[in-house]
């Protein structure tokens, strides 16, 4: 058997608090297309980033053409013939195609200036080879995402790359663009270029991958040759870890149909709509793969996204929500995914953050009643057990878990009717997580609707009373408590239909 192009053996990598990769191995042959699959957080991207020189492994070795190599940085990786095309493209929109392709290695002319003639002449054959019908003098911001991606591939080819890594390359492409890219992947592999392809989309893997490698919880879960790679077998490999059960059943009574959302949409998935019913007193979990459109849906409901055909009913009343203020006035609050950028003004104090959305309630003639404000903030600090020296401490200085509690505090001070939590425990330690789960349950038992978006499988399975699973901008099905199992969630998350799935609304 010929030496494979790339061998990664026993790769391990830890980050503070998590083991991202544990003794993972990966082999890629010349001209082979290998798809990497796995749930959110399975370690696919980390493995590829090690190959691309972004991260250094804690243990393990990398062999290229049978020779061990060390990849200390991105330049090392490039010099070994590896090109990494990130999900967020690394192109400079203000420069033209040729300048992007030759960025950082511009040939000079006799005056020490960029030899512009040469870079255009040298770029042209590569973009022709990729079927890109544009001038090398086109600025990148004039191109579509798909075309920009092809420019990145052209750059990879011009560097004589033997292996191109693509991290979810089709996540922002249209269907035609996707098909074109998949054809290109096949062509490139025919020309002897190897491709490592991270994707959630099983259909695409089916079209172009020679082999599928599945990771689960940072370990090799198994691999399938093209012929064996059926939907069911893939999902079976992706799921199957042990999940501790810490589900707490609701104590309060539920009022089904209390909160209804119809036709919520977002710019991420134009043309797709989300409709669902949620009961008063329940925690409705929203599962799905990254990019399924869950956060965008939450923002649409909160009046933060343009969602023109959306109709929202609370307790039978149709609400007009086109701005964040409207949602807030009706008691619909969002604790956003990106806590520090969207949830908090971290340089302000705990008191100022807690009172920000409700200031008008305790002020007269536009002046803030500071005593009342302090009481409200102190009340939330006590109720949520926020660990802070005083309410006057800057949020900046609190731990992640306590920052999240401040976000919750600012909304709980205003008695939520519908509380939307987007990744409520991301980056939070175990103890604080348990407290946040308890708070969510108390809120639900107190008569609120809780919508919880989470990419943490254990969390989604254990905290939700029902789970709505989203796939590419739509709800692919809702699971009742009895059917809340990992394989069901994963099947729906990759867009399959299963008998256990119920419709999201009546």
């Amino acid at each position, binding site marked *: 058997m010929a030496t494979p192009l790339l061998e990664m053996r026993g790769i391990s990598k830890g980050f503070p608090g998590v083991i991202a990769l544990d003794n993972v191995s990966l082999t890629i042959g010349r001209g082979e297309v290998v798809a990497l699959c796995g749930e959110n957080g399975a370690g696919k991207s980390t493995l590829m980033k090690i190959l691309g020189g972004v991260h250094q492994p804690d243990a393990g070795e990398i062999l290229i053409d049978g020779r061990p190599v060390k990849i200390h940085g991105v330049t090392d990786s490039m010099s070994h013939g590896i090109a990494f095309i990130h999900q967020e493209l690394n192109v400079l929109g203000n420069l033209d195609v040729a300048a992007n392709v030759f960025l950082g290695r511009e040939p000079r002319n006799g005056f020490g200036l960029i030899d512009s003639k040469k870079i255009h002449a040298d770029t042209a054959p590569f973009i022709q080879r990729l079927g890109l019908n544009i001038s090398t003098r086109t600025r990148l911001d004039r191109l579509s995402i798909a075309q920009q991606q092809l420019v990145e591939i052209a750059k990879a080819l011009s560097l004589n790359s033997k292996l191109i890594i693509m991290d979810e390359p089709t996540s922002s492409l249209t269907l035609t663009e996707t098909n074109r890219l998949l054809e290109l992947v096949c062509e490139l592999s025919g020309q002897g270029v190897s491709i490592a392809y991270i994707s959630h989309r099983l259909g695409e893997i089916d079209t172009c991958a020679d082999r599928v490698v599945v990771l689960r919880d940072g370990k090799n879960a198994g691999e399938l040759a093209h012929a064996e790679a059926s939907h069911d077998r893939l999902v079976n490999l992706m799921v199957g870890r042990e999940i501790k059960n810490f589900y707490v059943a609701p104590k309060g009574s539920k009022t089904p149909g209390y909160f209804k959302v119809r036709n919520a949409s977002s710019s991420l998935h134009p043309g797709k709509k989300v409709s669902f019913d949620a009961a008063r007193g329940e925690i409705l979990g929203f599962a799905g793969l990254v990019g399924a459109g869950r956060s965008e849906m939450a923002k649409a409901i909160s009046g933060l996204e343009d969602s023109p055909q959306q109709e929202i009913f609370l307790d039978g009343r149709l609400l007009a929500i086109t701005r964040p*203020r409207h949602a807030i006035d009706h008691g619909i609050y969002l604790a*956003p995914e990106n806590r520090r950028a969207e949830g908090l*003004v*971290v340089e302000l104090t705990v008191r100022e953050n807690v009172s920000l959305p409700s200031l008008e309630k305790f002020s007269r003639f536009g002046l803030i009643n500071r005593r009342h404000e302090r009481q409200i903030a102190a009340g939330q600090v006590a109720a949520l057990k926020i660990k802070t020296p005083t309410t006057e401490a800057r949020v900046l200085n609190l731990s992640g878990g306590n920052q999240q509690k401040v976000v919750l505090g600012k909304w709980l001070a205003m008695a939520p009717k519908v509380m939307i939590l987007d990744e409520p425990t991301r980056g939070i330690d175990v103890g604080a997580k348990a407290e946040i789960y308890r708070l969510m349950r108390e809120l639900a038992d107190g008569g609120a609707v809780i919508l919880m978006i989470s990419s943490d499988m254990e969390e989604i399975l254990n905290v939700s009373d029902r789970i709505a699973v989203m796939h590419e901008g739509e709800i692919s099905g809702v699971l009742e408590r009895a059917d809340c199992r990992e394989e069901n969630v994963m099947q729906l998350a990759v867009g399959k239909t299963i008998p256990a799935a119920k419709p999201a609304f009546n």
Partner: protein
Amino acid sequence: MKKEIGIFALLVGLCAVTGFENPRFFSHENLINTANLIGLFGIFSIGVGLVIITGGIDLSIGSMIALNGMLLVLALTEWHWAWPVAVAFALAVPMLLGLGHGVLITRFKMQPFIVTLCGLLLYRGIARFIANDTTKGFGGAEGFKTLQNLANGNFLGLPMPFVILIVISVVMWVVLHRSIYGRYLFAIGRNEEATRFSGINTRWVVAGAYVLAGLLTGVSGILFAFYTNSVTPSTQGNSYELNGIAAAVLGGCSLRGGEGSIVGILIGTALLLVLQNLVNLLGIPSSLNYAVMGAVVLLGVLADQMFQARSARKAARQPK
């Protein structure tokens, strides 16, 4: 608060040194004159400070003062409007211009620097055009002696502009440090996105800061017109926006937004004017005026930066 104390100490030190070198500094006449100037410059500096707290900038102040002064002169001496009407007009115009800036910045997502730079050019040009580029004076102030006294007179022995500055400062201190609106300004300056997510209409709050800056510039503009007693449209208020920005920054406003205080801006203004006074009184060539100002602002901000970096390091060393 520490920032204000530091620059206040600098102000006191400068006054002491100047007074020691030239006792005329503490003469009644010099103090009154300096207080008058602090009043004139302080009022619009507060406006600039508000805009800077939102993370913006206003470069149009100087030209607005010229345009505003010119409109006032014309309204009083050529159009013969009643003085309260003329004053209302001279306040409404800069407020509307400020509203225009605010709308262009928040609705049309233009950069504050560009919008107000164009304002700087535009208003100066208009002021010169409507006056045929000639100096216009108030003459004998027939029919608006009351206004002249209000703008130029004394109250309890203090020059009116200084008294008006004190009143405005108190009001603006309440607005900035005690009202909902002020809280929103600071929140937006730090993190507009999170503020918007909290249901606050950030566009109107930001636009409001430009309107307030317009209003305060309008007040300054009227006072300046009476201070000079005539308006030369090509030079009136020239480069005052830079004085305002320098005063605000020296007083602790951060151009990144979200930081600043009324007290700081006042001390910053006073410091700049005492510096100019010092240049005159100590016999330093007045051609060095701007250079001294530039050097002091630079050193002041540098010292503050270093002080902050040091206290950040100290805080980092202490376990949480």
